[in-house]
Every structure is written in C-alpha cells, then in structure tokens.
C-alpha cells in the first residue's frame, strides 16, 4: 500500500458535497484506499477540521445530516483505517512551515507531513495544490 497524506478537504467534499469534478476526485481516493492501493496518513489537525465541519453541519440542523447519519459517517471514516501521525510541533513550527511553503497555518501540518515523509498528498485545497507544485510535493491525481 502506497502511503499518502489525506487532506481533510477530500473527505469533507465526499461527506458534504462539492463540484462534480471534486466529488469524482474524492470518490477515486476512497476507492483506491479500499482496493488497498493507498494508505491514508493524516496529522492530528485532520481530526480537528473534520470534527469542525461535522459540528457546523449538525448545528444548521440539516435534515440530511441527522444524528444517525453522523454516527454512521463517523464509524465509516474510522473503518477506513486512517493512520494518524502525531507530529511533534508547536506554534513556532506552524509559523515556520507556513513561511516556508507560503501557506496558511491550518494547511501547514498536511504539507509538512507530506514533505517530511516524502509521500504524495491528496487534496482539493487550491493553496496546498500550489504549494505542492512549488516545493516538489506530489499530488495524487487520476487520469
């Protein structure tokens, strides 16, 4: 299984909907995980962002994202076997990474993890895509 960094934007697009192109990308990533071709790795910040979007969506009280759906979605994500790498970082590291890669502090754990492990990243975030191009980090693409 090829390890890669899974940016939370991919799963959030899958759960909450996105453009046709982005949904195709997100579903391709998930299929590759299931087929055993890709092993997702995330920094701990992934969990903060995913939780943030789930909580926000629940607070809007959308009928399509009720308690049962939330529970089943969380269970499904857990069952994907995502590996969390608890990187040792503090705010000074986040600032340094943001400056180095010209990205936002919230993007930096994903980019730094891919850079540190020298593995590709799956993302739908334009800022991260640009940072990958500039700094020689591969982005998972499908043809």
């Amino acid at each position, binding site marked *: 299984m090829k390890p890669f960094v899974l940016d939370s934007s991919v799963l959030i697009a899958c759960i909450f909907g996105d453009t046709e192109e*982005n949904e195709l990308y997100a579903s391709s990533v998930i299929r590759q995980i*299931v087929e055993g071709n890709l092993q997702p790795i995330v920094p701990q910040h992934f969990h903060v962002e995913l939780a943030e979007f789930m909580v926000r969506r629940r607070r809007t009280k959308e009928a399509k994202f009720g308690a049962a759906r939330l529970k089943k979605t969380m269970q499904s994500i857990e*069952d994907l076997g995502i590996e*969390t*790498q608890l990187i040792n970082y503090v705010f000074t590291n986040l600032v340094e990474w943001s400056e180095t890669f010209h990205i936002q502090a*919230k993007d930096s754990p994903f980019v730094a993890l891919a850079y540190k492990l020298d593995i590709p990243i799956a993302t739908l975030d334009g800022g991260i895509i640009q940072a990958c191009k500039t700094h020689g980090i591969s982005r998972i693409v499908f043809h």
Partner: protein
Amino acid sequence: MRATAQKQESASKKGKSLPSFVELPAGYTLIMVKPTTPAKRKAAAKYLLDNMPPPVKKGEKGAAQLVAEYRRS
C-alpha cells in the same frame, strides 16, 4: 495524608501514560490507527460513496471551497 499522597501518585502515573506530543523529541512521531479489516473498509467506502450528496450547482460553494475559506479565516 496518606490517601492524598496515593491520589497524587495515581494521577502522576496516569499523566505519564498519556501520549503527549510536546514530550516527544523533535522529529519523532507517535502513530495511531484504529484496527480495521478489508471487509470493514469496503463497507465504510460503500456507505460514504452511496451517501455522497449530488454535486453542487454552478455558482454554489462546494465543501472544498468552504474548507479553504475556513482555513483562511
């Protein structure tokens, strides 16, 4: 006094057993993964893909754009 001391010792032990990223030497990582099986992975993916909302309409904000805005806020 003795009970208090025991409580403190217990809390200290508990504290030591907790993974703390700030105590890891720089460059070291702690890896966490919830055990799963191929069957569970397959079922999980099926659920996520079957329940993927229809694509957003032209002009509407997709999730990726909302994530980008959240990160830049």
